């Protein structure tokens, strides 16, 4: 388990992360979403032990900062991977094999073949999309207990993205471990997820099982607008038919109402937009 207590960070007197409390359990695929600049990447870097504030992040009870054991079991694929330009792909994989105890060398080579990347290529020779695909494969093959993916597959075509997420899911079924996937394209990954973390105003707005989320936030069509006592998180008024998104967390009054369930990305969209209303 990874446990984060009172994690805060400021930059130029502005908050980047504000008092984060979070527990990440083993063997789950978790989505991490939030608008630009809300702190997603910083949070992932903190979990990976790369920041001084990483002392507030515990892996198996020990701070992840300067912790070799944690470094072998937590892998972060950052947005700008730091693979050396002087190594070819085979050498980069060899390095991964040396560092990560469960690195799957066979699968790495198999996947490279599948996406038509020669092991003799140098990293700097790859196009943006190819580099993203290679990094994704590398991350998958680390088999790290906690694999953190910061906006993976950016710049990769849609068909390849779909294929690679399918590969991730199959690999997860064979070898369960935790993935945290930060993405602006929730629609693309929501079917893979078990939990969702929403960051808002530099802190955890919500961390929940997705089935509970789908039972909790629902859409009610109505006319005229709903009265105030209902826990409305977002409302859109139109001349003929208005609708509200309602949080059922503490109430079950809606049992007699007709409502629609929502996809995860819609729930996230309305929560984000609701905050601006």
């Amino acid at each position: 388990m990874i446990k984060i207590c009172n994690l805060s960070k400021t930059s130029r007197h502005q908050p980047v992360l504000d008092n984060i409390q979070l527990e990440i359990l083993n063997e789950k695929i978790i989505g991490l979403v939030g608008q630009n600049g809300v702190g997603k990447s910083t949070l992932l870097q903190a979990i990976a032990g790369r920041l001084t504030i990483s002392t507030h992040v515990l892996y198996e009870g020990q701070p992840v900062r300067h912790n070799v054991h944690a470094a072998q079991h937590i892998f972060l694929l950052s947005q700008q991977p730091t693979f050396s330009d002087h190594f070819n792909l085979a050498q980069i994989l060899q390095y991964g094999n040396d560092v990560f105890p469960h690195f799957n060398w066979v699968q790495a080579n198999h996947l490279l073949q599948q996406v038509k990347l020669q092991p003799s290529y140098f990293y700097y020779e790859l196009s943006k999309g190819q580099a993203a695909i290679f990094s994704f494969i590398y991350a998958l093959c680390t088999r790290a207990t906690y694999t953190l993916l910061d906006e993976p597959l950016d710049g990769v075509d849609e068909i390849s993205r779909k294929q690679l997420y399918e590969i991730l899911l199959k690999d997860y079924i064979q070898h369960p471990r935790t993935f945290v996937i930060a993405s602006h394209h929730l629609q693309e990954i929501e079917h893979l997820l078990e939990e969702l973390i929403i960051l808002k105003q530099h802190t955890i707005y919500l961390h929940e099982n997705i089935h509970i989320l789908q039972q909790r936030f629902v859409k009610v069509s109505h006319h005229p607008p709903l009265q105030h006592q209902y826990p409305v998180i977002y409302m859109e008024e139109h001349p003929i038919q208005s609708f509200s998104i309602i949080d059922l967390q503490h109430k079950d009054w809606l049992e007699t109402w007709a409502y629609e369930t929502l996809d995860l990305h819609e729930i996230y969209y309305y929560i984000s937009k609701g905050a601006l209303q």
Partner: protein
Amino acid sequence: MTVNHTPIYQQVADWLENEILTGHYQAHARVPSQYQLAELFTINPATAGKGLTLLLEQNILYKKRGLGMFVVEDAQQRLQYKRQHVTLTELAQALITEARRVELTDEALIQLIKTLQEEGARD
């Protein structure tokens, strides 16, 4: 692309119900595990598991420890009953509401259904 707002676990349960209704999975047949379903539909195994749990709770499936989940003896009949009395009633209700909204008379609605049924019989 069609938008389907039904939660994925419900879609899994619906799919399995349909397979049981059509007789693809008969009484005491073993249904796919949550991991097989997850691979089949490219969804999280926990989501597939929740779909199976829904049917377990409705006594459509039963569990044999270590062996998997199986179809209950009278699952097909019970699902038929449920679909006839609950699902069809809801659909008919929606149909009546829509017909009244567009001021279609009850007689015309019934005639419409009859016509469609006759066309269906010819196919």
